[in-house]
């Protein structure tokens, strides 16, 4: 860790030499370790000490961005020069409102020393516990256990001085019998929250329950989606629906549906970067405080998130969801999504189903079929079961679904009272806090051989 004082002292010096009208420097540094296992041995075990420094310079309404991973003053000066050179070549960005000034930021604890100090040996010890639990049923395991710490600083010549230290810990486990597999996942800023034994047992029991799966015909089924399955769907709903670019481009289902009924009354989804139950952060990469934003409230379309440029374009303030300057073309994206809970336990959901499918998780979802209608496709994996007369009968071979999430989430029959934190697939800083859902209709359009 470099530390707040050293970083800002260095950035003051670099910014002082800047000939741009405004200058922003964003620092993201991390020490990261990941222990990956398969066939119940550790086969990949990696550590990375890295950082990224992004310098955004403004000449009038022209914006230049350059970045480096070297903190040496000479390299930062060269990056600053590159950024100014790029800005000179730029065309005016009429939507750019200038860099933000300082605001009041929430004080939240996102750093836990035990996680930061976690070593490859510590991770190996946890991973071995997973192997032992799986071996009791002679199952093999695959997965990854990751821990790391980092610091994020946002500095600009308008007075923004944001700084936060963070830690992260996550694990994913797949337990495998000869004919089936089961899955579990954990995520927290505190490594102590990750109980490898409990999670291993969940994955093992799922694989055991699904042994010798039988084929099930494709069709419209009542489904119970466990939190990992819900999060995988909502991750795509987020990607194609909750960001500012999709909203502006009219490719989002919310573009023409604000104030309209889009899902069942029981469905509420929002982003809250300040809720410490998730992977919270007090500010975004422009130094704007995070605001709570509702996307769907009681089934009604409410809004999307904005950064400074896309917000200004739409005549609204930033909601504190700006990405780093190199990704501003993507618009703003939510990173801490919460789905509101209900009052029906998973056991009650299963007991209420006459004939339906229980889904642990999905694989390889794609949401580009028809984004305004939220049509997604993907496969089930690592634990799909047939429910008959209120009981899990047996595992079923994996199924392909192709369905509109507007349709599926309009048929909600129940939501669980607790939710689980699921890491985002494509971004280590994002997560979704998801409960289990009982849906009245979900369209499976294909089958596979295992």
């Amino acid at each position, binding site marked *: 860790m470099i530390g707040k004082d050293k970083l800002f002292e260095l950035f003051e010096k670099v910014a002082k030499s800047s000939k741009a009208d405004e200058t922003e420097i964003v620092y993201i540094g991390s020490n990261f*370790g*990941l*222990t*990956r296992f*398969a*066939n*119940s*041995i*550790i*086969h*990949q*075990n*990696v*550590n*990375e*000490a*890295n*950082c990224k420094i992004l310098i955004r310079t403004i000449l009038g309404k022209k*914006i230049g*961005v*350059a*970045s*480096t*991973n*070297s903190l040496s003053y000479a390299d930062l000066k060269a990056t600053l020069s590159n950024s100014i050179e790029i800005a000179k*070549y730029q*065309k005016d*960005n*009429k*939507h750019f409102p200038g860099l933000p000034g300082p605001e009041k930021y929430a004080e939240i604890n996102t750093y836990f020393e035990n996680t930061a100090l976690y*070593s*490859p*040996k510590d991770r*190996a010890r946890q991973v*071995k516990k997973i192997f032992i639990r799986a071996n009791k049923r002679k199952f093999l395991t*695959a997965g*990854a256990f990751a821990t790391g710490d980092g610091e994020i600083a946002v500095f600009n010549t308008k007075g923004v001085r944001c700084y936060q230290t963070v830690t992260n810990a996550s694990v994913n486990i797949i337990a495998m019998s000869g004919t089936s597999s089961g899955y579990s996942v954990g995520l927290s800023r505190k490594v102590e929250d990750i109980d490898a034994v409990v999670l291993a047992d969940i994955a093992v029991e799922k694989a055991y329950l699904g042994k010798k799966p039988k084929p099930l015909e494709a069709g419209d089924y009542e489904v119970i989606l466990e939190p990992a399955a819900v999060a995988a769907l909502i991750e795509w709903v987020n990607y194609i629906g909750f960001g500012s670019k999709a909203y502006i*481009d*009219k*490719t989002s289902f919310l573009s023409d549906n604000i104030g309209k009924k889009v899902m069942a009354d029981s469905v509420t989804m929002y982003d809250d970067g300040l809720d410490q139950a998730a992977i919270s952060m007090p500010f975004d990469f422009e130094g704007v405080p995070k605001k709570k934003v509702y996307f769907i409230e009681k089934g009604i379309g409410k809004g999307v998130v904005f950064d400074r440029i896309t917000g200004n374009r739409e005549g609204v303030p930033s909601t504190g969801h700006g990405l780093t300057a190199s*990704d501003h*073309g993507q618009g703003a994206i939510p990173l801490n999504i919460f789905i509101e809970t209900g009052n029906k336990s998973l056991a009650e959901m299963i007991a209420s189903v006459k004939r339906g499918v229980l889904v642990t998780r999905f694989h*390889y979802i794609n949401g580009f*079929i*028809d984004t*305004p209608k939220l*049509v997604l*496709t*993907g*496969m089930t*994996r690592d634990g799909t079961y047939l429910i008959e007369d209120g009981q899990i009968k047996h595992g079923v071979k994996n199924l*392909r679904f*192709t369905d*509109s999430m507007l349709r599926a989430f309009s048929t909600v029959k129940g939501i669980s009272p607790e939710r689980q934190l699921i890491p985002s697939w*494509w971004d280590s800083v994002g997560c979704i806090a998801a409960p289990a859902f009982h849906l009245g209709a979900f369209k499976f*359009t*294909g089958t*596979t*051989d*295992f």
Partner: protein
Amino acid sequence: MKDKLNNVLDWLKEKKVDYADARFVRIESEAIRVTDGIVDTLTKDVNVGVGIRVLHDGAWGFAAVASVKEADIKKTANKALQTARASATTVKEKAKLAEVKAYKDHYKSPCEKDPFSIPVDDKVGLLMELSDRLRSDSKIKTAEASADFYKTNKVFCSTEGAAIEQDIIESGAGYTATSYDGKEVQKRSYPNSHRGDFATRGYEFIEEMKLLDNVDRTREEAIQLLTADDCPDAETDIIICGSQMALQVHESCGHPSELDRVLGTEISLAGGSFMQIDGLNKLKYGSDIVNIFADATIPGALGSFGYDDEGVKAQRAPIIQNGLHVGYLTSRETAPIIGQTSNGTMRADGWNRLPLIRMTNINLEPGEWKLEDLIADTRDGIFFDMNKVWSIDDKRLNFQFGVECAWEIKSGKLGRMLKNPLYTGMTPKFWNSCDAICNRNYWHIWGVPNCGKGEPMQTARVAHGAAPARFRKVKVGVSK
């Protein structure tokens, strides 16, 4: 740099490691995106560091640092060693590496015009013109044009004496028009979707793309799609364009033939493979005309290089021959398991990542048909053009792909345009239904810049040579 890397490797040898290698990588990149006449991204990035891989007591450790200081590199080597020791506590069978010649060489990729020496104004000007022409009709809601350039210098040294330097330049560009009429949203791209086409070449590749020549057609097709009929639900013959064939090869042959995946080491993320070792030289993967090769030696293709990140020289290797599964993509650790030496496909996406088996140029070899003859030979069917949606199960069997646009084929002629086209199938059945592939005149190597694999995630740039091909009795239109 070689001296610094060798010094730390000497130190590791003193620690009695089984094997170690060290990679210095410097990547300079430039990204330009123009959306609706505004340059919303114009960035330059420089990324430098060293990664060290250690095999000790038959187990692996890897550590990487964003520094080129010798003291930092040594500290990192020690971290890699300690990590290997932690891994060794779970070893069942010690990892063994296939023999490889310890090359000392300097490879440079072909490049006529260094894209970083082309004035930014010229590059922005071209994208601006494309964006302006795409949005010249009010039905175009968003017009995006982009270009990306990468310049990589890497130095690889190993405890076996390898010392290889490589300088690689990659370039790519493309554009997309998104149309909207208040009810419907459609997209049309050129020369390919998902950021266009890429090659391990210089700016001359961008100049040869005919970007401006195709902009009006792309815009008009995006608008036509708004009023096109939906792709019907049916079982029918289909002809798939070259760029979509590239993705078909990528997902249903490239990934399942990665031997690390076959051996289970990618299960935790993207899954396993149906192409198991007991099917080698037995599995009838496709019809007799299906021949698929991995070939990292093709000058200028995005999946080409001099040496992989284990120091193995680039090669051409068969995967499918006359429809039979005959080979895998291998590494030094996996190849001995099937009694072979590595065919050189281990690559990392930077100094900070562990090399994994990655696709090179995985090519469907051309057939003998002219496209017009193939269409004329098809009584009823659909022509699928340019990828929009991709999804496949975790053993790479059940797939479903959607494209931006399709055309009905009736009595050997292209007919009405169809929107939201999807086709689906099971991999071996699908490839066994392939009865015609177009000839070399229609064959092109499509650069795929965003192939994801591994934990932590790595993004590789790979490529696929393909020509349009016909498949019989495929399920289409399973959309809503």
